[in-house]
């Protein structure tokens, strides 16, 4: 049987199986769940910080003006010297005295060899402690936030929403690529004991910028 035949065979079976009309139209599907959270923006940011810390992520906060200095301070405190960054990251954030590798088609081995990665994010969801990457020029391609063992993510407070549906409401267009990160890589496959850091970055550091 050629693949083209299987396609029509399967679609024929499906159309035969679903010929009886009925059911809701898409517009009439029940959606009575919570869409918008009830927290004030400040409390929402606090909830996000609490959730991230539950995942063992480290969270710092700063103002827009303090941002470059704060990044340098974090790098120094964590002894990170060779850092890979996406090409769209604000050059003003790249403090002197560090080895910045700007991702221009770097090899996987070159990314892997870095001490860490610094990226921005598209949004964050407080309720579940989730950081959302759409992999824009400042968020970096997917391998960037995956291979280095340490990920510093710069997040603006205005990017924080309370609920997952609020994030979807902010997507004017569905993203072509997306990664939702809720805490560092983890497994519970051995006796349900949560172990941090399997294959993804073992250390997640979030810098929240009050804007």
């Amino acid at each position: 049987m050629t693949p083209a035949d299987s396609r029509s065979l399967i679609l024929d079976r499906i159309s035969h199986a679903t010929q009886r009309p009925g059911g809701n139209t898409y517009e009439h599907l029940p959606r009575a769940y919570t869409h918008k959270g009830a927290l004030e923006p400040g409390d929402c940011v606090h909830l996000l910080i609490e959730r991230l810390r539950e995942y063992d992520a480290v969270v710092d906060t700063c103002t827009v003006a303090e941002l470059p200095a704060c990044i340098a301070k974090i790098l120094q405190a964590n002894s990170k010297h060779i850092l890979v960054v996406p090409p769209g990251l604000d050059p003003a954030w790249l403090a002197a005295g560090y080895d910045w590798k700007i991702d221009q088609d770097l090899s996987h081995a070159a990314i892997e060899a870095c001490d860490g990665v610094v990226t921005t994010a598209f949004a964050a969801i407080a309720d579940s402690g989730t950081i959302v990457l759409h992999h824009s020029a400042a968020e970096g391609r997917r391998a960037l936030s995956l291979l280095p063992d340490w990920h510093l993510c710069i997040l603006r407070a205005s990017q924080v929403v309370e609920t997952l549906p609020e994030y979807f409401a902010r997507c004017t267009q569905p993203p072509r690529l997306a990664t939702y990160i809720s805490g560092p890589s983890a497994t519970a496959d051995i006796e349900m004991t949560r172990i941090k850091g399997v294959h993804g970055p073992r250390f997640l550091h979030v810098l929240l910028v009050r804007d």
Partner: protein
Amino acid sequence: MSHTELDPRLAPPFPQAALPVLRNPQLRKNVAHATDVIQGKRAMLVAEKSDWQELRSAAAAIRAHALENLGTYLTQFEERCTAAGGTVHWAADAAEARRIILDILRAEGASEVIKIKTMTSAEIQLNPALEANGIHAYETDLAELILQLGKDEPSHIVAPALHVNRSQVREIFARSMGRSDLTDDPQALTAAARSYLRQKFLSVPTAISGANFLIAETGSVAVVESEGNGRMCLTLPRTMITLAGIEKVLPRFTDLEVVLQVLARSATGERMNPYTSLWTGVTPGDGPQRFHIVLLDNGRSDILAKKVERQTLRCIRCAACQNTCPVYRQTGGHAYGSVYGGPIGAILTPQLMRMEHAQSLPFASSLCGACYEVCPVKINIPEVLIELRTQVVDREREQPVRVFDAMYVGMRAASGIFAAARRFRSAQRLGRIALLPFTGKDGWIRSLPGLGARWTATRDLRGMPGQSFREWWAERKDNQQQ
């Protein structure tokens, strides 16, 4: 643990397959511990969600709607995925899916592949087919790696190695990785898996995944995971092959706001799983530049055609029904003889086998309904179980050899007796006398001869009372009138 082949065509009936497990206290302890932990976490996180029932209703309705319009959404997915640079293949059955994947791998010149945990690949028995063709598959999910190295089979949909404990994992890793230095500390074992696979992620150019959701609106695929092995496989190789059941489709991107909320809470008792990846065809400069997706029917369109059974296809593979099931919690997954064990497996497996195999599974349930209560997409599993039991019995009854089977003779007699009140009353009186010699002083029957032994072999039976309700009622009325 001996190597058990999870092939529903070859598996012994459930009561027989469950016996070795019931005699294995270590395995029962491992399963009970794991399911207790997940259930505890799930209960806590479901309780904090005030809109849980609304989310369930929405998730059930979205999944049902997607199935009612499956043809439309699948062709839409195909069109959008193709436009984004993906190649869509259609596989009517397991053999065709295996052949398509092998053809792609041959064209790639692949001798190795890295794999993300996919139950669907176990359903089509992909790994043995790859091995037979000289292609080694590396399972990269920690649990799947434990099973692969230990020559074991999955026993749970979400945590497939939950029947294995830490010292067993240590033994498996020490033997197969040549790491006699390993302790049984989960942290050390996880680190061993990380270093064992790291080089594979960076060097193997072809990967195979399953899919949690296909988005019709955009042609995107979503994979939900915890460890990052999924992100590695989805990002680093040159070529990506995804195997997905045709039922996995969701109408729109926004529908993820419902299913992602119910999935992680139900599956692992987390507000959100650590990593969710979404991709659309191929993206220049980011990730695999060749993307194939194989849409697998393998019996699903038959299930779709049936009124009661169709809901089976709503399943989002969270395994909450397995964790809560009093039968699964005693037997673990292997007794079901299928990669899909527990309540969902008891309805899905025989249907995927077109009711030709695994007919004992619909009976592997007490019909307590706990599975329905926890199901995030409201699959009425007991309803489907009863429907499938009916089909099994109806089919069995029609077999000529069954005409003189004591049970069917008894059932035919009972149907005659129950049809008329007078016959029923006589049977009651007769039964009372007949059962008297078997009834103990405490009113319980412990052992019956013949057909009755099928009941008393595993449980006691209440003796017949001295008086039926109708007799008591009639007597009471007589007394009152006097």
